[in-house]
């Protein structure tokens, strides 16, 4: 089972990272979501894989799954929704503003007006 979970983390990471390297915003966002899954599963699994012993206290039961990674991952899931929403909004804004959805902005920073002042 450990092999399954670990390989799932690996495959999610691979697919996510491959998509992050694409040139358009939409696949990059999907890739980041996949990486989020990978990270969440990884963190969750760090507590050990336990089957059938949810951390709900019951009389006469002594063994429970590790609750701490669960609590951490729970908030991580919710926060990652917020992050995804912001990134999607930024992607949307850049698409509507520039009429293309490339992630790379290759304007040369050396030409930015901010340092024009330093030149004689």
């Amino acid at each position, binding site marked *: 089972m450990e092999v399954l*979970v670990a390989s799932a983390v690996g495959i999610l990471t*691979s697919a996510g*990272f491959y*998509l992050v*390297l694409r040139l358009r915003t939409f696949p990059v966002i999907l890739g980041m979501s996949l990486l989020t899954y990978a990270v969440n599963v990884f963190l969750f699994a760090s507590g050990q894989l336990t089957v059938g012993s949810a951390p709900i206290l019951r009389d006469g039961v002594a063994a429970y799954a590790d609750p701490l990674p*669960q609590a951490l991952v729970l908030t991580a899931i919710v926060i990652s929704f917020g992050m995804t929403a912001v990134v999607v909004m930024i992607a949307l*804004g850049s698409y509507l503003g520039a009429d293309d959805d490339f992630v790379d902005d290759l304007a040369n*920073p050396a030409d930015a007006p901010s340092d024009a002042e330093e030149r004689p």
Partner: protein
Amino acid sequence: MSLFLIVALPFLGALLPGLMNSAGRQAVGGVTFMVTLTAFVGLLTNLPAVLAGEVVQTGFNWIPALGLNVTLMLDGLGFFFATLILGIGLLIIAYGRFYLSRDDNMGEFFTYLLLFQGAMVGIVLSDNILLLLIFWELTSLSSFLLIGYWKHLEAGRQGARMALAVTGMGGLVMIAGMLILGNIVGSYDLSVILQEREAIQADPMYLPALFLILIGAFTKSAQFPFHFWLPHAMAAPTPVSAYLHSATMVKAGIFLLARTWPVLSGTPEWFYIVTTAGLVTMILGAVIALFKHDLKALLAFSTVSHLGLITMLLGTGTAFGAFAAVFHILNHATFKAALFMSAGIIDHETGTRDIRILGGLRHLMPITFVIATLAALSMAGIPLLNGFLSKEMMLEEMGHTALFGPDWLVPVLVTVGSLFSAAYCFRLIAHTFLGGKRDPESYPAQPHDPGAGLWLPPAILVVLVVLIGVAPFLVEDFVKLVTASVLGIAAEVPDAHIKIWHGLVPALYMSIIAVVGGLILLALFRPLSRAWEATPRPEAKTIFDGIIAAFVALSRGLIHPLHNGAFTRYAMIFGVAVTAAGYHAWTTGVLGDATRTVQPAGWVEIAGWLMLVIAAVGLASMHHNRLLALILIGIVGLIVSIGFVFFSAPDLAMTQITVEVVTIILMLLALNFLPNHTPLETSFLRRVRDVTVAGAAGLAAMALSYHYLLRDAVTTPISEFHLANSYKGGGGTNVVNVILVDFRGFDTFGEIIVLGIAALLIFALTEALLNGPVRARLLNRVPDKPLSGTQHPMMMVVLTRVIFPVVLLVGFYIFLRGHNEPGGGFIAGLIVSIGVVMQYMASGFGWAEDRVRFPYHGVIGAGVLVAGLTGIGAWFVGKPFLTSDFTYVRIPPFDKFELATAALFDLGVFLAVLGAVMLSLESFSRLARRAHVKDSENPMDIDPSRTSNQNPAEVDIKGPDTPVGEGA
């Protein structure tokens, strides 16, 4: 008054001018003056103790582990400088009030000034050198704000930047020196350090410490070769120049030399470095000052020259040298501040500071003439003025100092320096004020004497100049007291007196040579000036700019290849670097033995894994079809949720699946605008490269995860504590929920705030888009697909409304049981928001919006507020923030149930999550609404119960050329 208060007053008071800006210029100037006056009076209350020779001390430990204590001390030296800072500060504030024009933001100016004043007072009263360093850097920062106060002037901005670069860097260097010094002694308290002269000078680290500290002092006090920043700082408003360059900022370096004099001086290294730097600076500054045509530039270089003089005196390491130095600090502060203020008056009234244009002002501005002339004569060293006395003492001291070369060299050099000094003072008087009476029209503005607000402050200083010059015995005891605290344990106060007439001593002849030579130079000024202009000489600013440009080029060379604006490149660099670091750790580290056994997997698990793998690989390979990609990522999310259920994490599963739903809705809303197809743009080779890197990254993640899974934690995890105390301490059996709302409540509190901020950010971005150029584009946008005739199908409308109460009930149930069973605020919030979103989807945005009673911003705010107030509630029973409590109550006919403050906190979480999710989705749909279709007026496009003869489909087919109403 407590020393704390004296230091804190300017900082606290700095708030007032900014806040009172709308109360008028008079109020702003008045309140600043009162703040400084209070601090000044507070300082004076300590005068009797200081005169009695006591050292007033106060303090507490701040970070004892670092040796950083907030300890303040007030001895003669500290009192002397604090008096200068606050006393001259008062005059500057009065002057500045009248100097600044109506266009200047006076509140901002006085806020900066008070910040600077507080930092300066902090330096001179600090007992702990680390504390001193903090104030030291604060002066660099606040002087940056002051020098660059006129932000519209390019020279001001550049001068401020240069001052910050030089003094700030010097301060950083000095930190190293101070740390070494503290390390040698084993304490960072000056009162301890100053007793350890032998130990420090015998230590092998003495020399590095000395070098580093001297660099800090020299940069601040504009000593050669760091003198170049000071003249450029003259772009500041004149009150700033008068304050920073007469009594405060540049004197901080001098103060430091004086403060550390007992332990650092007296060695050959100190003598050669400090005296030489001072001598060179004095002569260089005087020579350059003579040929400057801008009044303030002339005064700036004269300041450099006089700072050199003081440094040189401190460098001699003799008690008499220190005595003369202290006296000259006092005299220089008085006449130089008066001169700067006079220059400001001339600039203010004539509209120029160019000496070549000025002349003959004696007739038009008699008051200013008297003030400036007395101050300038004092600077030139004319008897009966205070500058003469200290210059005489300097000449006497340097007359028998042998630095290098033959014995007569140093006396000759200081005489030359004094000669140039006298020459520029005479030039200032002659070329500005003397000369025939001229037509007032010949100046850029009509000159006349200003109001008393401008001339009174310098006049007060000139009274001091004359008073000290005529009756030096008045200040002699005080100067000796200060000298005693400079000398500390190192030497005795010299048994000398400040006298106007010493008899026919060499110093007198040197003085006479200087004055006569100065007059001759003035007479020969024109040919000399021409010769000077013709001489090539290095321009400090060009060199400085060159150095800065070289650093900028270096940074660009490093950064641009890595950071060229291509996100793909950063991602690649990041991925490769992390994978490489992991590989390095893998190959060089040692892998411990596995402590867990591998659990067997059944067919169901393998089937789930297969679905995940197929979905993920399919997503990567078929992502060009965006809708398909969205479906595939939904499958991945679903399998992950099922995985959570399987591995005993019901809370996580519920959260994941609800988040999945809202995320997919969000992505669909976005896809509404984005193209629905990703073109294939990368070359085959590039994709091979990406697959290789991604494969390596995945392999690394898998290996890490696998080995992690097979090993127990190195130390016992704290999870056991949570399991054991969840019910006892938190009153709940769902440990995950208890951790969220109780054990780690502070984290959760932070997280809901972050979530709220993210939602507000989305809202703000939407607003910016809708109000910007995008708006027109949205309005003119033609949907790339034909729209369905019935966007709000009857079935869906009816169904969503029927199940809405059920959804709310489920949400309520999930929320209530959260403390003991899977559920809680996060999940309930998500469930309820799904229910609400379904109404938006089914019945249309306009319909749903009309029925929203509370704005979602408010819901987020209420959530954060409820959670925060719950936490604060613990304070009232004397517990720390967010301590929870619970009890069991029984209301017949119900069973006994639990009431916990944690549930209240969870309510806050619920509200914040609900508000954040709804605000995000609503923002997206607002974009959509603006874009193409008018909202239908009725919730259902086809409604059999409506007896209307209009064709409902028309509503939707209306193209973009139909004006779109705002409040459909």
